[in-house]
């Protein structure tokens, strides 16, 4: 479904991605773990085509999105939805307008049809009666749910989550994990989740990949990762401050 080959990206001489290769199969939930600032979000933005790589290619259903033009990118983007870290809801629009945004922009549905689709999406993320709220009136966890609702309203084949459990309390985090898992089962979407929350990673992952120094250094099922013999991975998943990873390494 998604194949990434030799991806390189630098920002002002700082190498963020350095020859990263990764494959994601259809219908699987891949969790990418790594330290904060190691380039996980950058990787996601490459996959949705917001950032162009310096080198390397990304194939989505055998189409290299790094080579095609911006205008053709639209059809690729319609297959993907991204849930941003802070939700990235549009401040000037109500929750309902946010969730139904894609339907309004790209399709010719009537207001009633859109409202129904919005209600359905919101009930899927277990939110009701918030349609007329503005994003500033919502709590962090609610914002994330609305963002997920906005993503599923697109009927995407791939959903990308950028740190879905960061910044919410453990109970909300767990409910979001459950939600991601349920959506995956119900909608049969391919999911890529970027996180550094190991608890969440074990809950939702089919496979886990670890990003370190711009490359994938380990990949496997949650069990395989848990029983790893790699010192770096061991240090990270157990959250130890001593080991091969120094404070300044990303």
């Amino acid at each position: 479904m998604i194949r990434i080959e030799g991806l390189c990206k630098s920002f002002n001489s700082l190498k963020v991605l350095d020859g990263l290769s990764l494959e994601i199969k259809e219908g699987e939930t891949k969790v990418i773990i790594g330290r904060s600032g190691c380039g996980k979000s950058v990787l996601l933005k490459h996959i949705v085509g917001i950032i162009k790589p310096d080198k390397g290619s990304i194939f989505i259903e055998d189409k290299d999105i790094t080579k095609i033009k911006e205008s053709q990118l639209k059809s690729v983007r319609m297959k993907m939805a991204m849930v941003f870290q802070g939700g990235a809801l549009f401040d000037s629009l109500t929750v309902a307008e946010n969730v139904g945004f894609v339907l309004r922009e790209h399709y010719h549905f009537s207001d009633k049809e859109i409202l129904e689709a919005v209600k359905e999406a919101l009930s899927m993320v277990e939110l009701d009666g918030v349609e007329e709220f503005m994003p500033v009136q919502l709590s962090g966890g609610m914002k994330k749910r609305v963002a997920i609702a906005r993503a599923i309203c697109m009927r995407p084949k791939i959903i990308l989550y950028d740190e879905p459990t960061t910044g919410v309390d453990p109970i909300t985090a767990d409910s979001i994990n459950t939600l991601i898992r349920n959506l995956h089962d119900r909608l049969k979407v391919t999911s890529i989740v970027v996180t550094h929350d190991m608890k969440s990673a074990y809950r939702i992952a089919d496979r886990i990949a670890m990003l370190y120094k711009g490359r994938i250094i380990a990949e496997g099922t949650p069990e395989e990762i848990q029983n790893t013999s790699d010192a770096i991975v061991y240090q990270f998943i157990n959250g130890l401050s001593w080991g091969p990873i120094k404070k300044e390494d990303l």
Partner: protein
Amino acid sequence: MKSCLYFLNKLGNRFLALLYFIGGLADLTLHTIFFTFYPPFKKRAILEQAERIGYKSLPIVSLLALFIGVILALQTAVLMQRLGSEMYIASIVALSVVRELGPVITALIVAGRAGAAMTAEIGSMIITEQVDALRTLAVNPLQYLVVPRFLASMLMLPILTIYANVIGIVGGYLICVYKLYISSNMYISITLEALKFKDIFTGLVKSLFFGMIIALVSCFYAFKTEGGAEGVGRATRSSVVVSFVLILSADCLFTSIFYFIFP
């Protein structure tokens, strides 16, 4: 020697930055104009922006235009009374307001008010990833955010300028009629006689371009925002300063074109 090299290096960097700025702004301009004619058209967004840029700027534009008219009349009155020809005050006020001050003052107010708001709004959308979200939702941020502002600003500036012109002339009228006791009819007839169609027309054309400058510069700096709330502040400051500089230099250029090359 070392400080000389340092200086040259700095100068080179400044020049390079200027070239990047011109290139970036030109790129934004061309894309914006392209997307202006590219469906879907955001009628509702354009109207909303038109309200913010035009309608809501009217009170402050009117107030300042009135002051400008009053000041102009008082200043010229001092000189003209010495020459014993107060009649010329009307034509001086009318011509300076319609040709120069009306369009320029309006543009500066809108740049400071609506332009800064545009930069701050889009800038904070950038740092909260809302613009990235737009792109993942397969919506072109240029088309969704810049084009409505561009169109609204371009169309509203001439409208505001019309109001500013009239109110500026009314300011001059108040001084001349109630302070210098020039007859009301005479003031009006001299004003109308002094004004030419060309003066009104060139003033409005100028304000059209000022509108484009405001929207494009504000959006340009908004899209360059990085680094949190402080970055938004920085971007807003740059956008206002650069808008002011570009408006006045464009005015200089237009005035020289309209009154020297095509007299």
